[in-house]
Every structure is written in structure tokens, then in C-alpha cells.
């Protein structure tokens, strides 16, 4: 007898032909743009729609068009392409055994790059491990990123973290935890403190759609709503949480952006592969936060073209060519086409930029490996593991460090 439980599953499994014609894609430019201080109840249709600015002819259209100068768009294209090329190189290096682990964001570059460009440098970013584009956009040195991935002598985090778990206080990029969702509610606290201290900074946080089931997601929505914290809460719906389809997080019931309504938080559901729409939505939310409107929940609707990580094999749970059928395309290609349509860019320009960025990545990579690799070293010193457990090292750690270094007769 069939169970009466609804057990959600993925639409397509290996060997099946993906057909995404069932996904309702509203026309670009159709959606009205309310005032940033609109009440959540007065824009409750937004999370059930899909905000798009780039149309099928690669033109920007409608009231959400952020009308960015071509130079800004070219910056965005450059950061996205650099993110992709960096990812490709790091993946190859992981495959060659230079690092223990890697994790790409292919297909999701617009999320981090456009969102980062839409907020201020003073705004604090609370990322997941798939927003490396934030660091690249904020100008964090690629060398430091690579050294972190290599856990070598140049690793600013002293070899403590798994590759890609970056941190940069200078770039206001919060230390990546690896425990999912914890940073979502922490970001709300950061934003509350920003308000308490009367700064004009906001916090921006990301989780994947799978993590929206964690308690921290709901803590973040509750606390940000209750205290009207200046924070942008982003759910990157890339369809897949390792092998688990977004339907298993409840995505087939209601859009994740609609989770905000119950909390009195406006929800924007955005074509996350549309650079302009992603930028415009983030800008709207940032303006709302900065003018006392409180939080916004943004769902970035996209597709995880990459495996979850180098430890994952997507061929076991989804069609290998599924991304090619994804109706929202490739964010890099779409912004490129837009710039071509504006007559600001050409295929030749693009190839030239790709070659230049590849060269840059290669050159920096050589410098990074000259500082060591995980397998061959040199690494940060072993004794460094005892630092930063506490602000000042307590006596038992001094003692254990002595034991590690064999300077204690009781070492074992």
C-alpha cells in the first residue's frame, strides 16, 4: 500500500532527460519595484514571482534595471570570470594532489559578485563556502586564497581550516565555519550591534536552500524581524544540497523567499544567474536596511553546476548534463551577451580577458606553491596549533606544547 506521506524527490535522475519547461519563468522587466520601505504584507506577491532584468535578447528592461554604467558591468564580468577560472585551476590542482579538498561555485558566480558590488565596503559579509566571488570582488589577494587552500607556510589561517574556509577581517569577510547556517543568525547580531553603535553598516549573510531547514535560519528571521536589524538574508537556491534536491527542503511547497512573509520580512525571489537582477535586488534590500526598514530575505534562484565538492560525484544522483538544460543559463555568458548587445564588448575582448586572467591565476599559483603544499610542506609550524585557542595561552596548553615539542620527559 502506498504511503500517504509525501516523499519529495528530484525531478530527474541519472539517465533521464531533463526538461525544465515546467518551471514558470516570468518575462524580464514585468515585476513592479515597490518603495524600499514597503511593508512585507504589501509586497507579498514578490516572493512568488521571479525578478528578472535581462530579457531573451540580452537587453536590460523594466523598473528593476539598475542602469549600471558599462564600466561597472565590465568589472562584474571580470570578477565573475576570474572566480570561474580560479575555481577551474584549483580543481585541477586538487586532482593533482596539491590540496586535500576543493569546492567550486560554477554557475553561481553572479550571486557573490553582483551582491558584493551592490553593497558598501564597510558592510560585513557572512558567507557560506560557495561565495569565493565575494573575496575576489573585494580584492582579497588570490595568493592568500591559494595559500589557504594549500595549508602551506603562507596560509594566513595557520593551517587550521579545510581549504576554502577563508577569513579576512580586513575585507569584512567573516570566517567560514563549515557548520551550516550558524553564520546566518550571527549576522543578525552583528547588524544589531551596527545599529546600537549608530554606524551605517549593514550585514549580509548567505545560506543554501538546504540549510533553510536549520534552526539558525529561523533564529535569523525571527531576531532580525523582532529587532528590525539592518541585514540582508540570502538563500542561494542552487537546487542541490549535495545529493538532496531542494524539494526535500520544502522547495516544492512554496518558494524559499516566501518564508519571510510569516515573519513580516519582504521576500524577493531573483533570477540568480541574471547579474543585473541580482544586483538590483541586493541594492533594494541594502537601501531598505540602511534606512530603518530592517531585513530582507532574498532567494537567489540558480543551479549548482559544480559537484558539491571534490568529495562528491553528482553522476550518481542527477543527469550529468542537467546544467546544460537549466533554463536560466550561465551568468557569465548572459552578462557577456548583454555587454555585446550594448556594443561594449566582443568575443575577441572576452577571449583576451580570459587569457589574461588565466595567466594571472597561473603566475600567482606558481608563487603560492613555492610557499609549500599540504603533502610536501612547508606548513605552518606544528606548535602554532596551540595559539588562538584563548587570547592568552593558559598553562595547560603551554605544557602540552612543550610535550609536543618533546621538551617534556612525559611526552607521549
Amino acid at each position, binding site marked *: 500500500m502506498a504511503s500517504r506521506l509525501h516523499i519529495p524527490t528530484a525531478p530527474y535522475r541519472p539517465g533521464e532527460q531533463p526538461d525544465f519547461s515546467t518551471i514558470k519563468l516570468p518575462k524580464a522587466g514585468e515585476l513592479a519595484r515597490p518603495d524600499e520601505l514597503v511593508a512585507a504584507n504589501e509586497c507579498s506577491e514578490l516572493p512568488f514571482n521571479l525578478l528578472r532584468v535581462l530579457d531573451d535578447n540580452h537587453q536590460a528592461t523594466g523598473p528593476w534595471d539598475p542602469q549600471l554604467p558599462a564600466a561597472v558591468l565590465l568589472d562584474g564580468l571580470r570578477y565573475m570570470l576570474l572566480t570561474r577560472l580560479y575555481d577551474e585551476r584549483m580543481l585541477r590542482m586538487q586532482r593533482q594532489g596539491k590540496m586535500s579538498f576543493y569546492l567550486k561555485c560554477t554557475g553561481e558566480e553572479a550571486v557573490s559578485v553582483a551582491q558584493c558590488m551592490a553593497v558598501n565596503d564597510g558592510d560585513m559579509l557572512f558567507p557560506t563556502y560557495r561565495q569565493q566571488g565575494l573575496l575576489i570582488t573585494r580584492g582579497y589577494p588570490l595568493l592568500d586564497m591559494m595559500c589557504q587552500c594549500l595549508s602551506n607556510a603562507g596560509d594566513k589561517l595557520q593551517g587550521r581550516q579545510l581549504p576554502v574556509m577563508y577569513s579576512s577581517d580586513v575585507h569584512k569577510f567573516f570566517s567560514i565555519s563549515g557548520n551550516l547556517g550558524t553564520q546566518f543568525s550571527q549576522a543578525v*547580531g*552583528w547588524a544589531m550591534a551596527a545599529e546600537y553603535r549608530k554606524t551605517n553598516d549593514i550585514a549580509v549573510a548567505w545560506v543554501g536552500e538546504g540549510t533553510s531547514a536549520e534552526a539558525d535560519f529561523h*533564529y535569523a528571521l525571527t531576531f532580525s524581524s523582532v529587532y528590525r536589524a539592518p541585514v540582508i538574508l540570502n538563500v542561494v537556491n542552487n537546487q542541490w544540497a549535495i545529493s538532496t534536491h531542494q524539494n526535500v527542503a520544502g522547495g516544492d511547497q512554496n518558494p524559499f523567499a516566501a518564508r519571510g512573509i510569516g515573519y513580516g520580512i519582504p521576500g524577493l525571489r531573483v533570477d540568480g544567474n541574471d547579474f543585473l537582477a541580482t544586483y538590483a535586488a541586493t541594492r533594494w534590500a541594502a537601501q531598505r536596511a540602511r534606512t530603518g526598514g530592517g531585513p530582507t530575505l532574498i532567494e537567489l534562484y540558480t543551479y549548482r553546476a559544480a559537484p558539491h565538492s571534490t568529495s562528491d560525484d553528482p553522476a550518481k544522483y542527477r543527469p550529468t548534463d542537467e546544467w546544460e538544460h537549466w533554463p536560466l543559463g550561465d551568468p557569465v555568458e548572459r552578462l557577456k551577451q548583454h555587454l555585446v548587445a550594448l556594443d561594449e564588448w566582443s568575443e575577441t575582448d572576452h577571449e583576451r580577458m580570459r587569457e589574461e586572467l588565466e595567466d594571472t591565476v597561473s603566475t600567482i599559483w606558481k608563487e603560492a606553491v613555492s610557499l609549500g603544499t599540504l603533502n610536501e610542506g612547508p606548513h605552518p609550524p606544528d606548535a602554532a596549533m596551540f595559539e588562538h585557542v*584563548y587570547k592568552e595561552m593558559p598553562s595547560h596548553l603551554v605544557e602540552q606544547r612543550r610535550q609536543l615539542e618533546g621538551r617534556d620527559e612525559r611526552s607521549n
Partner: protein
Amino acid sequence: MNAVINLQDDRSERRTAPEGLRPETGSMSMIQALNSAMDVMLEKDPNVVIFGEDVGYFGGVFRCTEGLQQKHGEDRVFDTPIAEGGIVATAIGMGVNGLRPVVEIQFADYIYPAFDQIASELARLRYRSAGQFWSPVTIRTPCGGGIRGGQTHSQTPEALFAHVCGLKTVMPSNPYDAKGLLISAIEDDDPVIFFEPKRLYNGPFDGDPDKPAVSWDNHEKGQVPVGHYRVALGKAETVRAGNDLTILAYGTMVHVALAAAAREGIDAEVIDVRTLAPLDIDTLCESVCRTGRCVIVHEATRHCGYGAELSAQVQEHCFWNLEAPIERVTGWDTPYPHAQEWAYFPGQARVAKALRRTLDA
């Protein structure tokens, strides 16, 4: 960034009062002493904020924050939604952004939803970011039994926190220490889990539930300076010097241990551990090596309880001086019962029996 703004240099307060001028003191319960510690810190450091369930307008279910919102404002002392994980998470974020949050978890029994935020995030933020980010959060939480609270209002889960590297874990046994330790905890740049034995809130308790309750008024440690002072974290205190054996205890059990030793006429040295992590092993071992005998007393369950760590360390450091096996007197390895509370609670009789055994060994 990440600079915690200290508008006042708190070290200037370290000066001692001029001779002949004793700091003004008053008789305080532990509740009043804790309240005074927070009042002093709110006054002293504009980055201190206090929040938790019912702590704002009402002043907390145990009244520890009574009057603080009225005095210091709604943006500094406020109520939160019922979400312990959310309380700690927002505190972490605030701490990263320059504040010095003091949060209350209404009962230690309710702290578990916040455990991930405490153990995986708060405790390790400085470490995983190689010192780039840190958050000086103090988490206050009432713990312990003896109040007919049953299994959800009586736990002392200190061992779970003392086990987590990166945290400091504290449990005072009297009003004077409570205030001084809480001020130290708030001023400390590392996260501190501050356990308050709720049976001691209104008076010392020697483990005999049939005696009438006594207040802190006539207790030496109920005399508390009204202003700012510190009791250092990481320092145990010898509350009774003695020669026959050493009792290691903390929280409510300090009082039970003292009473049990007195009842048996044993010249016990009683040490109040006070800070469980980092542990002041030197004070403990100096005593045990001298007396040669050690009894460890705590309220929490025995298996993997904090006494196991104390016992292991004492054995490592004092083995050749020991004249008897190290004994532990603890709660039984069951959830904290309601009707059977006084059979569960490691009271004077059980402690006395262990003291006698250790002395006779």
C-alpha cells in the same frame, strides 16, 4: 576592524583602595551580587549589553537583572524570543562587532539548543580565524538542584562545557565570588560560561533540606563591595585549611563538603575550584600532595563528570604522595529525579561516608 571599543581603560580600576579606606560593602544575596556586577559593568562600559528570556522589563525569572533595564535603557537590557540558539548566535555577532554581550540562558537545562553555537562557533572563532575574529560573550545560566525542579530544572552540565577548548567555565559558590568572577568574565576577551548554582541564590545550603533556609546576611562571603572589583578567573580558593584530607568541590557542594567535614570532626582542607577551565591545578595539587588524600564532590552525574578530570589530574600529579584512593561523591548516573531528589543529591551523609573511607584507607 574587529576592535572592541573600550571607551574606558578598565585596568585603571585595578588600583587598591588607600589604606584606612575600605571599599564600601553591603550585605548581598547572590542574586543581588550578580545584579550589582552587571549594573557596575553597564555603567562602566557602554559596549556591555544584556539580553535573554524575561531579563528586560521583568528582570529575569530569578530577578538577577531586576531594575537594570529601567536604569540603563531598553537598548542595553532587553527581552529576547524564546530561542537559546538565537540568543547565543546574535551575541556572537554582536561581540564580533565590538560589543560585550552578557546573555542569560534561563536554566542550564535549556542551554542545549545553543550548544552548536557555543561549542562549534563561539569557542573556536578566534582559533579558526587565526585571531582575526573573536567574541567576548558571557553566558550566565542558573544550574543545579535542591529546588524541587525535576529533570528539566536541576542539571549541572558543566562537564560538557569544560570539555570544549576555547571556553572558560566558571561556577561560584557565594555572593562575593559571584560578583567578582562575573565582572572578570564580562571583561575577559574569551567566551565564558558562567554557571550560577540556583540553590545558593538566596543563601548558603549545606545539603540538609530539613533545616530552615538561611540568608547570606550573616555569611562572610555575603559581604560584597558595592563597586567594581574582580575575582580572577582560573584561580581556586582554599576556603578551609586543614591537614587530614583535601576536598575538591565547587558551587553548592562547597557548603555541603564543609558541613560534612564538620559533622565528622575531620580536619579537611576544602578547596573551591571556582573556575573549571582553565583549571588551577597548582592550588589543588599542592594541597593533595600535602594531605595525601582527596575526595571530589560534585552535583552532576558521575560518568565522565568533571570529577573524572579532577581525579585524573590529581593522580597524575600527586600519585607518589597519595595515601588512599581518590574518591568521588556525585549525583547518580540517572536523570535528575523529582520525588527522589534527596536520594539523588550528594548530601552530607554520602560525603561524610567518603571522607571516613578515605581517612581510614
